[in-house]
């Protein structure tokens, strides 16, 4: 049974997925418990973003086999907005610029849409602003981004910061942050890491998709997975990250899903 004792947040079982006729995920397995932070690392083209988009329900990514259970529910037929309303949040690698739509309008519509789904009272403009300020205080960020059109003309760092603001405001149960750390300078990275850390709690899970270990020095994950050619070839704790740092992805090439001791000694 899934969701036993309410601890299973996400279960991904043997997922195969196709993009533009090409199979990118080839038997992806992952299990995330409530409160856990997982990191998924892997070289370019290994399927990290595909997994993120499959979870969020992007229509160009087709799941051809397997099952994804979110809080025990199969999400296959759920629309992207329903997934979001149930608590799945995707932090985009490339957030989309939407000229003419102000942050306040966008965020209030999103928040109220989710609250409506959850049968909670919708917020009026004043209540929303109060909540937004509280969120920004928590993240130690200011309102300047919110007043502008969504992502329009934002720098790379501002876009990533905006994703974290959205996550904090929408309070998802499961957040998948797709390379939220890429292209950031050290100060911006710390700001993002602080946001993630403050969002960490026992009822929320996060999946950090990243190329580098930098972010993981600030946000210590409970589990680390190495993704290669559409499947997880290695899972473990932070020590995997250290090995990766020294030897690069090639050291995991021959790995199968076993313990860290199976890493070829010669590759170290």
């Amino acid at each position: 049974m899934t969701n036993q004792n309410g601890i299973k947040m996400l279960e991904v079982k043997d997922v195969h997925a196709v993009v533009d006729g090409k199979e990118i995920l080839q038997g992806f397995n992952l299990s995330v418990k409530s409160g856990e932070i997982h990191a998924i690392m892997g070289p370019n083209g290994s399927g990290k973003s595909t997994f993120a988009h499959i979870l969020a329900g992007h229509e160009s990514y087709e799941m051809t086999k397997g099952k994804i259970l979110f809080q025990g529910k199969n999400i296959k037929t759920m629309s992207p907005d329903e997934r979001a309303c149930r608590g799945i949040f995707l932090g985009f690698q490339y957030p989309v610029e939407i000229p003419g739509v102000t942050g306040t309008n966008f965020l209030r519509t999103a928040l109220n849409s989710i609250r409506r789904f959850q049968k909670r009272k919708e917020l009026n403009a004043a209540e929303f602003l109060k909540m937004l300020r509280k969120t920004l205080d928590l993240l130690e960020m200011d309102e300047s981004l919110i007043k502008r059109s969504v992502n329009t003309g934002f720098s790379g760092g501002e876009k990533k910061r905006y994703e974290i603001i959205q996550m904090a405001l929408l309070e998802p149960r499961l957040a998948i942050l797709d390379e939220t750390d890429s292209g950031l300078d050290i100060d911006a990275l710390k700001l993002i890491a602080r946001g993630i850390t403050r969002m960490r709690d026992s009822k929320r899970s996060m999946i950090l998709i990243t190329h580098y270990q930098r972010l993981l020095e600030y946000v210590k994950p409970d589990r680390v997975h190495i993704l290669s050619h559409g499947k997880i070839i290695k899972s473990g704790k932070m020590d995997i990250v250290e090995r990766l740092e020294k030897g690069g992805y090639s050291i995991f090439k021959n790995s199968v899903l076993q313990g860290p001791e199976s890493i070829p000694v010669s590759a170290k």
Partner: protein
Amino acid sequence: MTLSSTDTYRNEYDKLGSILPGKNLVWFKRLRDQSIAKFSRSGFFDIKNEDWHFTNLSVLRDRAYSSSAMSEGTFDTKSLKGIDAYHLVFIDGKFKPSFSTTKNLPSGVTLYTFRDMLDQDPDLLKKMVNRSFRELDHPELNLNLALMSDGFCLKLSKGTKIDKPIHFVHHSCPRKNYSASHLHNLVFAEEDSCATILESYSGDLRKNYFSNIVNDIQLEPRAKVFHYRVQGESSEAISLAKSLVCLKQDSLYENFCLSTGGALSRNEVRAVISGKSADCKIAGLSLGCKKQHLDNSVWVHHHDPGSTSRQIFGNLLTDFSKGVFQGSIAVDDIAQQTNAYQLCKNILLSDTASAYTKPELQINADDVKCSHGATTGELDPRSIFYLCSRGIQENDAKKILLGAFVDNLLKEILVIPVREYFKEKVRFWLRRQIH
């Protein structure tokens, strides 16, 4: 043998000659006679005419629309409540003083119906008629001149400013289908005067009629005219509107047309800039559904140096609707330092909607800044997914994106109460179309 529609109009003119207003004015009668003669020779243009390539008036050639129709149905005064203005209401081409609120106009404003003006002050009328477009030989203009039954004449004396818009309302509810109204409006803004003019056109549901409007507008030095149109005719109607504008030195003319009605409609604006440092802004938004055909055609001619013109249009098209934008900028050799800009953006909400855009620039001066752009596409799927991934339903996401698109266009409207009035109409359309 059946008569062609052109012959039918000729016969109608011969028949109506004695009851059309201005019959006793020799010069006016001559204008009408000449106009019907010209129309009889040409008939309506077909698509071989460059200016009418995308808009086919075959429906007007196939059958004539008669002027002598009686009204039926009633006018809902609710439509006047949306905006605080001096309302001037016409129903089926006839002035309705009982619905109108033009009693307390500020001093310096002369407002007549065309019919009254012909009776009471024909000399002023003669002075107000625009000379700049005398050579224009357009069939629909000739037909309007021959058969015009009424309209309004607005004269602003030097320095006069009107506190709220003059709202010209025309509602069509003819008893019989295939009836026509030919209205002719004159605006003469003297030096330093300023006015906002709003035109609203509506009609009873599914009535098939032909509305043929001509606006003749002159701006003297430093005058400002803000001119807005709401084309909300019945879904079966044919609507042709032509605004002929002449701008003198340092004057400002702003035009915005919101088109949502009609089976076939054309909003045509021709502006001649003959004076230095004038500013001419012409914009519009067409919202099309079903099989509507919505055409915006604009000609701006820079005769004198240092002036600015701007054409900004947008079409939002769904079902089988068609949007047309033809934008022409002509710059004479002496019109140096002209700054002219043109942009048309189309959003197609269905695979079967289509948009035609034709920019035309004739630049004969070398020190000018003229540019144009056009885009056509669907709503960006990446933006839709981004919004949906935040819990917003797909249709709400589309509404947000379309709202941003139309708001961006409505920003062209400088008079805020009018902008809000238009925004409400656009929101209504969006609510109805996107669900």
